[in-house]
């Protein structure tokens, strides 16, 4: 393929390298050297990628975690225009400001739907295995180009603004990535099997309602722990859904699966482990409470989990 994911890995690597450089030179940052080290190490992960020996990458990840965990990653001073300048910009540019913002989803859609099968010679134009991500990368570049043209700013200013946002999120940027690593380690170590074993051996599944409740709550709880419904589904469906609900109570597998996955999503709404949905937005929106998004979601997630148990109970025979 011509546009592959590797291109965007390099771009993101360069972005982090630029962050590191700008941070080293930023005397207003009280921790400029350790902060630059953090972003510099992350740049290496993207720039070198598979060329890094796995053990070295492991050491690198632990080093990053220690730097961040000891509170050595701090934001620098953000250079923002004064309020009136921004208000004047909004008045001058008006609706046109929306064009680059909407270019991201529009180009992503175009890439994923229209350019999906386009070949140049024998090669795919867009990497077919990572179609959405690659399309979104193209959309982001198009949006940056449009934004530069519209505001007469340089792409370098765009990099400075990206650094401002990355600085504001701080180590929360790497949390989803590290949690994904933990998830993979959990499955390698057999955590899923152990949970399924405990669930099936110690919980009462001898009435249909209890079995439905154990299945839905199990999905949600396991997702809270793993941070990902995709990790919970195979374990709980294999432990309770298929042997008990389908095997004993003759439930329709399609209903069991659909409602099971949605119960897992109720768990996703309630866990800091799903950092990219819950913790990163709190950082991105500059909320003082890192769990504020979770707290806003619990009043939706819990009633919905209850509703799922009832829906499964009444719909499982179609």
């Amino acid at each position: 393929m011509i546009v592959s994911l590797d291109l965007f890995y390099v771009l993101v690597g360069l972005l982090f390298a630029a962050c590191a450089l700008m941070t080293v030179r930023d005397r207003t940052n009280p921790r400029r050297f350790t902060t630059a080290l953090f972003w510099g190490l992350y740049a290496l992960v993207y720039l070198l990628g598979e060329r890094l020996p796995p053990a070295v990458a492991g050491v690198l990840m632990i080093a990053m975690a220690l730097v961040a965990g000891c509170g050595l990653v701090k934001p620098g001073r953000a250079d923002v225009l004064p309020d009136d300048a921004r208000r004047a910009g909004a008045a001058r540019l008006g609706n046109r400001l929306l064009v680059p913002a909407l270019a991201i989803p529009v180009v992503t859609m175009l890439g994923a739907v229209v350019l999906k099968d386009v070949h140049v010679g024998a090669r795919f134009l867009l990497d077919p295995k990572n179609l959405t991500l690659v399309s979104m990368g193209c959309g982001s570049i198009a949006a940056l180009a449009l934004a530069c043209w519209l505001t007469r700013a340089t792409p370098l200013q765009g990099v400075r603004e990206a650094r401002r946002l990355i600085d504001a999120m701080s180590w929360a940027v790497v949390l989803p990535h590290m949690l994904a690593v933990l998830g993979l380690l959990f499955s390698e170590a057999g955590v899923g099997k152990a949970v399924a074993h405990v669930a099936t051996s110690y919980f009462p599944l001898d009435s249909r309602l209890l079995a439905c409740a154990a299945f839905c709550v199990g999905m949600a709880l396991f997702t809270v722990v793993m941070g990902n419904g995709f990790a919970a589904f195979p374990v709980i469906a294999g432990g309770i859904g298929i042997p008990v609900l389908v095997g004993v109570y003759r439930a329709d597998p399609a209903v069991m699966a659909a409602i099971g996955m949605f119960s897992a999503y109720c768990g996703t709404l309630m866990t800091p482990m799903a950092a990219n949905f819950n913790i990163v937005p709190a950082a991105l929106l500059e909320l003082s409470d890192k769990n504020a998004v979770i707290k806003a979601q619990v009043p939706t997630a819990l009633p919905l989990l209850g509703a799922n148990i009832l829906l499964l109970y009444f719909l499982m025979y179609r």
Partner: protein
Amino acid sequence: MHTTVNLWPLLGIAAVAAGFLLRANPVLVVIAACGVTGWAAHLPVMHLLESLGGAFIKTRNLPLILLLPLAAIGLLERFGLKEYAQSSIARIRSATTGRLLTVYLLAREVAAAFGLTSLGGHPNMVRPLVAPMAEAAAEARHGALSEPLRQRIRAMSAATDNVGLFFGEDVFVAFGAIVLMQTILKAEGLDVDPIRMALWGLPTAVTAFVIHAWNLRRLDRRIARESAGETAAERAR
């Protein structure tokens, strides 16, 4: 089940739970949990490092969706995208925070159900547009907001994006979750039509919309109540 299952790796889960309860830095919690899990599963140190490093490299596609739009969005913010979003919503008289977010919830959920999951998201929609609009709708009606209320509105904007995405996308047949469920059920000898799985997601998708829309109405009432309380307190002073 007569095969013995090693229950020690569950300590990894305990480490995560303890870490979050003690409010330790989440990045440190993750690393500690990695160490505990590796130790409980009897992985040699070198093997553990290689597993971690290999996984770290392999999953580096995950943060891209957050990082790629930042340069464009940051630049637009510098030139007043938030201020634009706020002034345009303030002109709509009937807009309230709750109504605005309900419309966004519906749009996000329906779009996701048709596979258009990229129409939305925290970096490219919520931070620059949805959250500022939700704040401005409340300000236009009730004047300046207290800081806790402002943060609550922002958190609710992020929550609305999540709820719309989660309970919309699973109704879309070509979505990864449906493919995953089909693969797993097939491995267990159950052949299930993906379209039926998507359809049986609909009752939950509708329920999710109703429950969250109701919570958004509660947010509207809370905004009205707290603002009224504040004005009364000011008058008393």
